[in-house]
């Protein structure tokens, strides 16, 4: 009977030693980032072209300024557009991050592209919330990246115009839209299109 507690003590001690012996912080950063670049995304992207009619609704940007949606989109520059909401968890953060990467990737051409993110939760996404969200992704004051909100009806009308409407916002899927100029067809990328994919579509649109 006396040997049993002794045994327990030794086992406990052994577990403790193993636990303490676990190395921490061993991580070859350069190796790993290199390794990650070699990975391929499994999400597939499907490309299509379509013409959409912009609804004449008024939306507000992250600074609270109202304007007609067609005027915001048809300013002559190539447009990159998506639908997001700020409290969205799994899809929007990567989608918005990818748009931020596209901006980075454009470099000096950044000002030659109109970027638009339309909220599909306009009741929650006030201009103030959108502004905070934009800042999180490096889109500060005076950028060419608009975050738009407005009435529920206006947001729905825009989603429907782009054939991207879901009655329940939790049902939304990742999709990016690009267009060279007013009157031209929209390129639609269904799926989580990555920055290099979007840039590959966008760069020819910037060519003179």
């Amino acid at each position, binding site marked *: 009977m*006396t040997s049993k*507690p*002794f045994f*327990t*003590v030794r086992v*406990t*001690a052994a*577990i*403790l030693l193993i*636990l*303490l012996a*676990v*190395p*921490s*912080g*061993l*991580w070859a*950063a350069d190796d*790993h*980032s290199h*390794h*990650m*670049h070699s*990975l*391929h*995304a*499994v*999400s597939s992207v499907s490309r299509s072209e379509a013409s959409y009619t912009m609804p004449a609704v008024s939306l507000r940007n992250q600074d609270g300024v109202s304007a007609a949606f067609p005027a915001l989109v048809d300013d002559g520059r190539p447009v990159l557009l998506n639908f997001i*909401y700020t*409290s*969205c*968890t*799994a*899809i929007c*953060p*990567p989608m918005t*991050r*990818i748009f931020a*990467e596209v901006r*980075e990737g454009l470099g000096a051409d950044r000002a030659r592209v109109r970027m638009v993110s339309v909220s599909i*939760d306009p*009741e*929650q996404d*006030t201009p103030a919330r959108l502004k905070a969200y934009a800042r999180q992704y490096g889109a500060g004051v005076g950028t060419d990246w608009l975050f738009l909100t407005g*009435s*529920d009806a206006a947001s729905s009308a825009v989603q429907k115009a782009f054939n991207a409407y*879901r*009655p*329940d*916002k*939790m*049902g*939304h*899927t*990742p999709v990016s839209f690009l267009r060279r100029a007013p009157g031209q067809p929209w390129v639609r990328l269904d799926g*989580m299109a*990555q*920055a*290099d994919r979007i840039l590959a579509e966008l760069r020819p649109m910037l060519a003179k």
Partner: protein
Amino acid sequence: MSASALRALAVAAAALAAGSALADTNLVAEGRRLYLDGQRADGTPIEGRRPGGPLLAGRDLACVQCHRPSGMGTVEGVTLVPPLAGDILFTPGRPPAGHQPRRAPGMALEDHAFRTRPAYDMASLARAMRDGVGAGGATFDLPMPRYRLSDREIAALAAYLRQLGATPPPGLEPGVVHLATVVAPDVPERQQQAMLDVLGRCIASHSPAEGSGRRAWKLQTWRLSGPASGWRRQLAEHQRRTPAFAMVGGIGRDWAPVHDFCEAEGMPCLFPNTDAPGAAPASSIYLWPGVALEGRLAARHLLDQPAPPRRLVQVFAPGDIGRQAADAAFGAFAAERKGARRLDVAPGAPLPALTRDDALLLWLTPAQLKVFAGHPPKLPAGIPVLVSATIGELDRVSDPGAIRTIFSNNLRVIYPFDEPNQRLARMVFNLGGWMSGQGLALARETERTQGNTWSACLVTARALYTLPNPASRAALIERVEDAYAGAVSTAFPRFTLGPGQHYGSKGGYLMKVGTDGKLVPDGDWMVP
């Protein structure tokens, strides 16, 4: 072995056991920090990247962003975020019982890899976190970051996940979910009964049958009594004697004691009928932000005037919910108007002489409004007068035009509900049939309570139907956040929730009194 040697050994054993428990606690705490905040034990942000993306750090990468506080994951569109809580990761994935892979000519929809993978161990978990390759060899989808984590950090995450949802929550038995509803004594008996009638019948008619293999829902009513200062103790006593998993509906005016109880207990308290919900709810989910929202609507309206006032003169009973409205109004107003001043007046106390720099805000009950109107103050022409529809119950009176004659043409009613006719039409359409089938009737006095309670029940029902295993209160809250579309009969024109959104309706109208004496919106629905 001598007695003293044995004693020494026992002491050493206890010390070591305590040490190992401490190590476990530390590991779980480190895992919690990684999971919830994206922070390492030393406070530095974790790092990682999505395939092809830039290096990211910190909160953006925290597991909770997608896998949610419950660890039960989520579904957005066709993006599935797998569950991780409890022993899920450490047991082999399993297709849902009775589930067949879907097939059609030329195509088959296979089960998601997390349902067919083997159990994780530390090595495969490390590979998953660092390289994005699951235990079954499948590469993770793009949204899942590839992390820079040490072995210790992987172990910490595993320890945190193992205990997540592992302790069964109160009020949940193998065959029963115990639900509670709260009735506070500070609302009229008629409203209490309207809530209880709809909720009791709705829960009974939506609950899975006993013995159906799913948990049946049992509703208990917690009646509060005496002054509000004693309610929190009474609630704790109810919870101790007959524990509830969640609170549904309920009714009360001064909701602060119930709110505090729910937040402290971590109890999901879903859509009580109150006009004074608590601020920053974590475990409570409310129909709307209450009269504080009316205060912010009033401030927005006044700030948008060509010449905004400088002073808010607000009349409210000190011990009533009008104080919340007045504080919110002044807070929002002063945030944008430099040198803003406030003057609070109790109902019945004389008003000072007002000037063109003032706005008058009345957070008064119907009885107080009547008294106030009996001795109407002399007001300078053109000063704004704002009245709360909620506290004044102006959404329930048939002829609000009577109040216009008392004040001025600058009167606006702060109206955080749907337009009266549309609201009634929707109630009748979505709720009328069910109610008459239950032997109940919609009544003008109680339709707001009835419609809101029906919606509270339906949203809760949807969430309970999809409650995952292990079931936790956090998981219920997340399911409710996703189930808002069930709120088809609230008093509000729009009702949406989402991750972390805990007020369903978020805006309101400013109404003016039309020539026919009816309230008509003066401008668009506003979200302040």
